[in-house]
């Protein structure tokens, strides 16, 4: 892992023009410049519901509804991106932590009558606890870590299915109370959706902002350092195993948060929502969006969430579609797997970086995997 792609060195240079100082104004300017992407995203999210209404019907895609999911997946994907992209620790089990969050809040609100907001907070805390519990797997590296986290996901799935008295088994949990938010009126489905949409995205945007600060801090540097050489980072005084645990638990906390919100938005959950397919979907979001990229997480979450919705809408656009398109959901896992593999081969830097490179350096976003690497 020590030697990576030569051509990505340009961005390292671009990213290096980091901290500059100078009073309050300096800080404000610094933030504004650094957060152009962030501010544009805020603007987009704020106005989206207004033009979404007229667009949704002809498209056949309920845009606000889908964007709620994008927001939820963004929260998980950001955490997973920090873990995988920055710190270089793979996890194929984050669907499980998402599930832990969802079940925690669902059980507490349905069976113990907690209010949803408290349920969601508890979801985060429980996900943190499970994060620490699972953290010892971080001693493993590479494929071994991938296999171990995969195992964690499977164990949890079985646990959710078999602990019927707590989780309802295969029937899952129904009638999870929705979030009660300002601007919601009973019986007005559209108000509900919109309020949830804004609630989710406010949280997602805050998470994005905090995470983009984090990766540019001393902790972010420590993560990137241990990603590139654990030995060197450790010898330079970075407590590698502890830093790994911290970033892992951060990512499980965010997965728990997203899962907790998901339960209330969805209204019902069952174990089949949180299988390995979800974990792979999350990893695909990270890889497609671009490793080591906070904004890539948004792009990846958006793309991967919209693909199935677009396929579902195809009959409406085209009238007649082949049978296998109608049965798309049967192939969903395969489609994500394919996207994952193709991205890793042809656009290993992900779409956000691929596209920004194309604009900035006039370079094709695709790599030719058959080109021979220059000899050492």
């Amino acid at each position, binding site marked *: 892992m020590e030697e990576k792609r030569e051509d990505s060195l340009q961005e*390292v240079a671009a990213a290096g023009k980091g901290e500059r100082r100078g009073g309050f104004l300096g800080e404000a300017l610094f933030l504004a410049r650094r957060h152009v992407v962030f501010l544009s995203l805020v603007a987009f999210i704020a106005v989206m519901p207004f033009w979404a209404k007229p667009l949704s019907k002809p498209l056949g895609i309920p845009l606000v509804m889908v964007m709620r999911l994008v927001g939820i997946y963004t929260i998980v994907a950001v955490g997973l991106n920090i873990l995988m992209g920055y710190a270089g620790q793979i996890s194929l089990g984050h669907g499980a932590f998402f599930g832990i969050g969802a079940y925690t809040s669902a059980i507490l609100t349905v069976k113990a009558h907690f209010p949803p907001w408290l349920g969601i907070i508890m979801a985060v805390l429980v996900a943190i606890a499970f994060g620490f519990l699972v953290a010892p797997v971080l001693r493993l590296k590479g494929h071994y870590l991938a296999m171990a986290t995969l195992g964690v996901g499977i164990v949890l799935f079985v646990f959710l299915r078999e602990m019927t008295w707590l989780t309802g088994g295969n029937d899952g949990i129904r009638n999870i109370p929705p979030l009660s938010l300002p601007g919601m009126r009973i019986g007005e489905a559209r108000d509900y959706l919109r309020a949830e949409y804004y609630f989710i995205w406010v949280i997602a945007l805050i998470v994005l902002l905090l995470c983009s600060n*984090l990766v540019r801090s001393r902790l972010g*540097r420590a993560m990137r350092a241990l990603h*590139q050489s654990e030995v060197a980072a450790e010898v330079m005084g970075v407590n590698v195993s502890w830093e790994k645990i911290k970033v892992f638990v951060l990512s499980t906390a965010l997965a728990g948060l997203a899962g907790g919100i998901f339960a209330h938005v969805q209204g019902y959950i069952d174990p089949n929502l949180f299988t390995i397919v979800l974990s792979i979907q999350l990893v695909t979001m990270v890889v497609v969006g671009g490793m080591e990229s906070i904004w890539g997480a948004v792009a990846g979450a958006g793309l991967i969430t919209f693909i199935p919705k677009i396929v579902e809408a195809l009959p409406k656009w085209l009238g007649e579609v082949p049978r296998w398109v109608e049965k798309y959901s049967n192939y969903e896992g395969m489609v994500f797997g394919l996207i994952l593999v193709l991205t890793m081969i042809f656009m290993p830097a992900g779409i956000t970086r691929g596209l920004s490179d194309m604009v900035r350096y006039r370079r094709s976003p695709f790599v030719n995997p058959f080109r021979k690497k220059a000899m050492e």
Partner: protein
Amino acid sequence: MNVARTAGGTEGGAPGFAPGEHLLAAESLTKTFGGLAAVKNVSFMVRKEAIKAIIGPNGAGKTTLYDLLTGIYEPDEGSVIFEEKSLLGLPPHRICAMGVARTFQTVRIFSQMTVQENVMVGLHKSTSSGMVGCSLRLPRARREEAWIAEEATRYLDLVGLEMQADSPAGSLPYGQQRLLEMARALATRPKLLLLDEPASGLNAYETRELGELIYRIRDMGITVLLVEHDMGLVMRISEEVLVLDYGEVIAEGTPEEVRNDPRVIEAYLGSELE
């Protein structure tokens, strides 16, 4: 750094050395890799603010000895005392925190980070903002960040890499990558700096400059251990030389003494030392 040079003290030291004057004392260190003793029963001491060289033919165990001192490997036997405290069993980051830094024979810079960021990693241990402070950019975290950037620039100045601060570390030529490793190690503010073949890949002029740099580092109050194959550099700048062969100490003394030691000449077949 003002060092009180106390005389006396008897425990465990080799004859002629007083513990108070010594920063590091390694005692019968042994490390075996599957039957092969890479380091065998090695004892030596390093005086405060000295420049001490460790030489020996390829495979003599010099790098392995560094790995033992920095906690990358634990010795099978023996002890390491640094400032009267044992380093045995401590993880590398704790040893770094106590004031031991090193460079690597095969450079291990963080090639995907900028030159300055590399050095900033060295300052990680001197700062303490946590997840909350860093993600909210609280005033203290911001102050620390500014301090880190400033300090990093200082160390880059010291090794002469200030112009490359924003370049990706991986794009530096080999010799400069070694200098970067030195800057990064110095940023951990060590008391003892272990250099592993810093002159390899440098031309004669750059090697001379490296010698000057090592003097400057020593003048900052930092003790330097130098593993090096360039005998010219070793003989010129070091006050003491330890010679290893097949993992064992075969000679120790001033450059002059070592140069004339028959066992050393034999180990090197007489050629390299002249």
